[in-house]
């Protein structure tokens, strides 16, 4: 079981800028989280001035599945069809560090004690990093909801924040999972059909093209960035092994001892160097891309819903025409058509707003992250330089 408490570091870790007004009526944060084997329990702390809540300050414990439930109910709510629903945070994935830890355990016999300890430390750091990231991502999800005028008033959201018992009632069972899967398939087929629908509004036409294209590219970039970070980490690990073996060799051979001990110090330095670079990239760049990939997916979903509404509207028009021809159920058809039109207009309007603000948000976030990454890289490179310089001095003075 591991637990962490969020502190000032949190701000540095945040890879997405969230606009929080200081006088907001609803403040949410995740001050603590517990990790029990596979499950992570988040402690969600709310501070509010709204009357709809029973207490001004309270905390509840939630699991990842509860977040999924919340997201799904929001998606299924008709009223929010015109809004970009913040993407659900990804499941906490401790698979990779756990696997590595397992392998490390198996290979323990072949390593020296120091090597083992160092590798273990690295793995623990990785584990911790995954943990911090997942907490952060969940927190951001909630904060986006709370800062949105519509979502913050959602009844389910309030239940989520407030209900002090387990929400386990509403977990998906197998049937629902299957149903969900099926729905996704239908949706993708639908998307293909809908993409053929004539778009009347140029704004949306542009957005659609742009988002589709961009989504593909950012997905690719995310994958490549992940690969790069992984190679970097592997590289850093290698230095640990080398340093350990050299230390062993040096221990046997007294004459070259000092030099060999120096080299293994060097290896340790270099390893830190590479590991830092890798984690910087991971944090700023990869996370950024990952987050926006999901966000763009959410935007695409909005477009999809709107297109669906447009298709419905057109269908209702056709139905109305048919009804008029047959002179049957005209009233009903007219009503239906009016509804569709209204829905479509509403979606278009709110969609436009959302997408515009999304664009602005995205640019701001990219800017912030890119600047931060560059600054971090520079800082670390400079500190690495001084580290190396110190090593060189030490070697030369010996």
């Amino acid at each position, binding site marked *: 079981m591991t637990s962490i408490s969020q502190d000032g570091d949190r701000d540095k870790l945040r890879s997405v800028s969230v606009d929080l007004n200081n006088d907001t009526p609803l403040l949410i944060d995740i001050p603590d989280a517990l990790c029990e084997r596979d499950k992570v329990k988040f402690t969600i702390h709310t501070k509010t001035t709204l009357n709809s809540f029973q207490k001004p300050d309270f905390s509840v414990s939630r699991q990842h599945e509860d977040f999924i439930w919340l997201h799904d109910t929001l998606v299924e709510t008709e009223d929010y069809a015109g809004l970009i629903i913040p993407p659900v945070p990804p499941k906490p994935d401790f698979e990779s560090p756990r696997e590595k830890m397992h392998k490390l355990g198996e290979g323990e016999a*072949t390593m020296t004690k120091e090597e083992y300890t160092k590798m273990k430390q690295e793995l623990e750091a990785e584990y911790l990093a995954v943990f911090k990231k997942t907490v952060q991502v969940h927190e951001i999800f909630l904060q986006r909801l709370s800062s949105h005028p519509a979502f913050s008033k959602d009844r389910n959201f309030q239940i989520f924040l407030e209900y002090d018992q387990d929400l386990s009632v509403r977990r998906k069972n197998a049937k629902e999972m299957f149903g969900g899967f099926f729905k996704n398939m239908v949706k993708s087929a639908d998307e293909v059909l809908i993409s053929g629908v004539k778009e009347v509004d140029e704004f949306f036409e542009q957005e659609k093209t*742009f988002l589709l*294209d*961009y989504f593909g*590219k*950012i997905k*690719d*970039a995310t994958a*490549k*960035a992940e*690969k*790069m970070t*992984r*190679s*970097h980490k*592997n*590289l850093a690990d*290698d*230095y640990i*092994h*080398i340093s350990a*073996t*050299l230390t*062993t*060799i040096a221990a*046997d*051979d007294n*004459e*070259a001892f000092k*030099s060999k001990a*120096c*080299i293994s110090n*060097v290896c340790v330095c*270099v390893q830190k*160097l590479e590991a830092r670079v890798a984690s910087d990239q991971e944090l700023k760049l990869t996370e950024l891309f990952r987050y926006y990939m999901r966000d763009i997916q959410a935007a695409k979903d909005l477009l999809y819903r709107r297109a669906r509404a447009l298709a419905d509207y057109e269908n209702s028009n056709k139905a109305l025409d048919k009804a008029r021809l047959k002179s049957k159920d005209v009233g009903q058809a007219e009503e239906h058509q009016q509804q569709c039109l209204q829905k479509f207009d509403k979606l278009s309007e709110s969609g436009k707003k959302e997408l515009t603000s999304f*664009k602005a948000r995205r*640019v701001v976030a*990219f*800017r912030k992250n*890119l*600047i931060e990454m*560059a*600054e971090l*890289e*520079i800082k670390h*490179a*400079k500190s*690495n*330089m001084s580290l*190396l*310089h110190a*090593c*060189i001095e030490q*070697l*030369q003075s*010996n």
Partner: protein
Amino acid sequence: MLNLLVIVMHTHLQNKPFTPTPPETDPPTDIFSEEGYTVQTPIKHPSLHTNILEPKFNGIQSDEELDLFAGKHIQPTNHTNSGALLEEEEHGDTFELNIAVTNPEKMGDGMNAFMTYKVSTQTSLPAFRSKTFSVRRRFSDFLGLYEKLLVKQSLMGCIIPPPPQKSVVGMTKVKVGKEDPSSADFVEKRRAALERYLQRVVVHPALLQDPDVQEFLEKEELPRAVNTQALSGSGFLKMINKASDAVNKMTIKMNESDNWFESKLQEVENEEQLLRRLHASFDSLVNHRKELCSSTAMFAKSVAMLGSSEENSALSRALSQLAEVEDKLEQLQQEQAFSDFFIFTELLADYVRLLGAVRGCFEQRVKAWQRWQEAQSTLQKKREAEAKLLWANKPDKLQQAKDDITEWEAKVGQSERDFERISSTLRKEVHRFEVRPETSNLLHKEKCRDFRHHIVKYLESLHRTQHRLVKCWETFLPEAKAIV
């Protein structure tokens, strides 16, 4: 022993350092110019960080078994030089032999293709017909030479340097004719390894005098060594032999009369294991560095694509700038990869194999001892048989028994002598292997200095890389800040 030292030092002084230079075509004139010892650099960067390992050619001669870094050409200090000269005068003959392996060429086509290498020798030894000559050899010829030497010399207790390993994957790529850098890399690695192998062989005085070696260097056409193929009859035989050897090792324990051998063997085994580990780590380092290069390149391309489809123009510019930065980083990484002990890894592998050969010699000695013991026990049995016959009073068979006894006594004597000879040769060989010349003090200090010098150079190269990194990111920063 002194004799060996002299020869060893003298040939060593002849050898030139090994520095990476861009590949050149084989000049027709002096085959022993620098070029003979160069390694083709896989990357054509003008500002190559010098290869920090200028390895010893004759790896056997390391002063300390573990001090592989100190490979530089030994600046002949006055001390050594005069020492060597003195010895020469005493013994009256100078000998010198230089070998280079160059010019890999592909012959044949498809799966029957093979690479041949030009083996050039320059010598003043009387045993050879001319002063300078060269022949073309293919990889299986080198292996064949090794096999022959193994059979002959292992009975003597000499340490035979092992050749580079077979590589089906590497060779298949070359055969298929893929003109990519990895197969060029492979050929180059193999060429360098073959060169080192030959140099080790000739530096060994006993091996140098071996007619097989001389034939290898001189003869125009060598019969194709078929028994080196992996899937041949002899290949299988070898595998079976290895298996039975392994079993033998486990079952029969030798009464070691001389502790020196036991402790030495232990040392050798430990060292081999450690170096094997080190080699594996370095290998993985080099591979990961290469992997990082390629994934950075792909990432850079991907970001460029992203930038091009970005609608916000400032962000688009920034993203393309990022792509460029990443690209530059990749180049830096590549350079780093080269100075990342790429060649050192090769040498480590060589050294590990050498240690394996040393171990093999110890095993030969044990086998010789076993043969001796067996001969003794057979003799004993024959004697008992004779005694029985005497007692049973069968004079006709007695003569036979007596003959047997004489035969076996001779055999016992022979195998004992063999054993003694192997033991003493082995001792000498091991000493030669870890030779610590009496003049070592000066050399040794120099070596340490050299070695530290190389490390410092490596660190400085790392330092420079970091500096360039800073510059890259600093040019990127204003672009990022300009995003609106």
